[in-house]
């Protein structure tokens, strides 16, 4: 018990220290030596840092679904996009005040996942993945269709009616702090729900859904609950992103964006809290910086066959990701996890195979898993 309390205190202390350190970043003008394009507290760097914080948090909301409950969703981008687009549409097309837009977004952020989750959770495993993808695609088509000129189609639409403190390059640090606040909020919320009693049921569902059912609980309700919570938090992330970028564009609705969230979580460490945040931050960092790095002389002078793919961040990230799945399946957090480098993913084995074509012996248990890891 004492050990547990001490560990908890240590974890809280570390978290507080990390967030405290992040909070004072805008006060320091440190040369970043090419890691970023300019000093640490320049607006450009702060914007990239804020995006890293936002996506770190959004990755954590995705991990709540995927890593903690074993729900492989390919439609998380939809809920993020709801936040981005509603903020923009309500403040410009409808000319609402920011607080009205936020209230409205919050209501929609509860209703939409409740409805879509109730339908898509009718199936499990891979079918669930495909269905969520289909819903996200419907959202993406809708945005591109530009109904009533609201979404702006390919061009996107700007966010309006912002308070002065959030407008202008010099105020980037305020947006940075909002992003940090969002990250802390998500971190605290996820820690709280994961350790609550529904949180334990989610983790039990991940490991063996049948067993949860046999115990007399209804997995569907718990899955819907985590789906709504995680989607709601993702929508909040979309709002912060919209404020940060100042506009809404169709990029956040694409399937590639959901896949990016999956990559972030696995890179950081599936089913871990710090891992997901780190993965999201690292992925975002690479996504923004790889383009500039690929312009470096040694790559520019290499033959087309090497130079062209290296100038595509997704090629580099996709390839790195495949290597990671092979050699470090537990992600960055897997380096420190007890129980093997594959722990995070091994817990998910059950969850992607809830619908075997027929019940075969190997679907019941896979004794080889222990031996291989």
């Amino acid at each position, binding site marked *: 018990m004492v050990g547990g309390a001490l560990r908890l205190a240590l974890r809280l202390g570390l978290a507080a220290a990390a967030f405290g350190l992040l909070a004072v970043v805008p006060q320091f003008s440190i040369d970043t030596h090419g890691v970023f394009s300019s000093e640490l507290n320049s607006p450009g760097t702060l914007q990239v840092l804020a995006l890293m914080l936002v996506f770190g948090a959004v990755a954590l909301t995705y991990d709540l679904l995927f890593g903690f409950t074993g729900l492989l969703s390919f439609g998380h981008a939809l809920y993020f996009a709801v936040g981005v687009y509603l903020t923009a549409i309500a403040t410009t097309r409808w000319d609402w005040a920011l607080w009205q837009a936020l209230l409205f977004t919050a209501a929609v952020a509860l209703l939409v996942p409740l409805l879509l989750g109730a*339908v898509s959770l*009718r*199936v*499990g495993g*891979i*079918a669930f*993945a*495909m*269905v969520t*993808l*289909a*819903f996200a*695609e*419907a959202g993406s*088509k*809708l945005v*591109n*269709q530009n*109904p009533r000129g609201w979404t702006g189609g390919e061009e996107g639409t700007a966010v309006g009616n912002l308070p002065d403190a959030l407008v202008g390059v010099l105020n980037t640090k305020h947006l940075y702090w909002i992003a940090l606040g969002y990250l802390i909020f998500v971190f605290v919320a996820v820690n709280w729900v994961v350790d609550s009693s529904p949180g334990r049921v989610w983790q039990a569902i991940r490991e063996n*859904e049948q067993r949860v*059912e046999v115990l007399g609980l*209804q*997995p569907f309700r718990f899955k819907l609950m985590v789906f709504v919570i995680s989607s709601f938090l993702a929508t909040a992330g979309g709002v912060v992103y919209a404020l940060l970028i100042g506009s809404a564009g169709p990029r956040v609705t694409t*399937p*590639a964006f959901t*896949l990016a969230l*999956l*990559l972030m979580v*696995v890179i950081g460490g599936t089913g871990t809290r710090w891992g997901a945040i780190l993965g999201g931050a690292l992925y975002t960092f690479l996504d923004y910086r790889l383009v500039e790095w690929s312009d470096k002389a040694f790559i520019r002078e290499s033959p087309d066959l090497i130079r*062209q*793919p290296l*100038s*595509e*961040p*997704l*090629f580099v*990230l*996709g*390839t790195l*990701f*495949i290597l990671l*799945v*092979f050699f470090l*399946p537990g992600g960055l957090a897997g380096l420190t996890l007890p129980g093997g480098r594959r722990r995070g*993913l091994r817990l*998910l*084995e059950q969850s*992607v*195979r*809830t*619908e*075997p*074509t*027929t019940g*075969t*012996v*190997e679907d019941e248990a*896979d004794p*080889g*898993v222990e031996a291989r890891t």
Partner: protein
Amino acid sequence: MSTFVLLTITGLGLGAMYFLIASGLSLIYGLMGVLNFAHGAFLTVGAYSSWWLSTQLGGVGSDVLRFLLSAAFGLLVGAVVAALVELVLIRPLYQRHIEQVLVTVGLSLAMVAWVQATWGPTERVYEAPSWLARTTEVFGARVPNDRFVEIGVAAVVLVGIVAFLRYTRYGLIIRAGVENRAMVTALGIDVRRAFTLVFAIGGLAAALAGVLSGVYFGGSIDPDRGTSLLIFAFIVVVIGGLGSIMGSAVAAVLVGLVQQYANYYGSEYLDFSVLGDLSVVLMLAITLLVRPSGLAGKWSVAH
């Protein structure tokens, strides 16, 4: 009336492409339990390979010969790439389903990005025989000829796959593997060889869909073609029932037709051109509510 005929045949053409993609997806999932996210990338790579050869051929022979040669090359590349992916990336992760899905996700992003880096993000003109672009009159509707080719090819592939599964030894192993893989293995048959075969067939069918999509979409291909068609193929697979070829065929026809009708009438009368795409997603939702295991589904999902 003529519009309706045109829409029907065009919808069938679209359904034909969905079927070509979905059949491979469904076989791979049925046998190996792998959701192959890279299937769209096979399509894109096949289509671009075919396009590349057609640009190299210049004025050799007639346009039909050039098209057939380059299409054959695209199919070959699609099959080889798919087989290589299975051998190099999927096989070492045998029984690790999560990792297999993740690898195909990474692959789908990397391969499409590679195509985009090499041949540019914008669409490329795909040269097809001029006969395909002409029209034939059917019940007063002027239907582009390529629609008939797509429908015919898909029908041939459907018959071919069904015959292959039913009358060949490998087909027997694949069918048995879909039913109960552990039992087949216990009988001393190496199912894994069938895995490579299924991937190659799937890659070939996907590349075929890629080549045909080049003709269907007004003679052009773009790097995102595979991904956007793949999503509808996923819908087809779920509606049809995972692992069932016939289910996929029926669902592909349904999805293609509904999408065409609703897209056309939606933009005609409601000024809403994505009605078809949304209707298809709605169809999926209804299928899940009424029959979660799909049209031909045999696995039951209680929750």
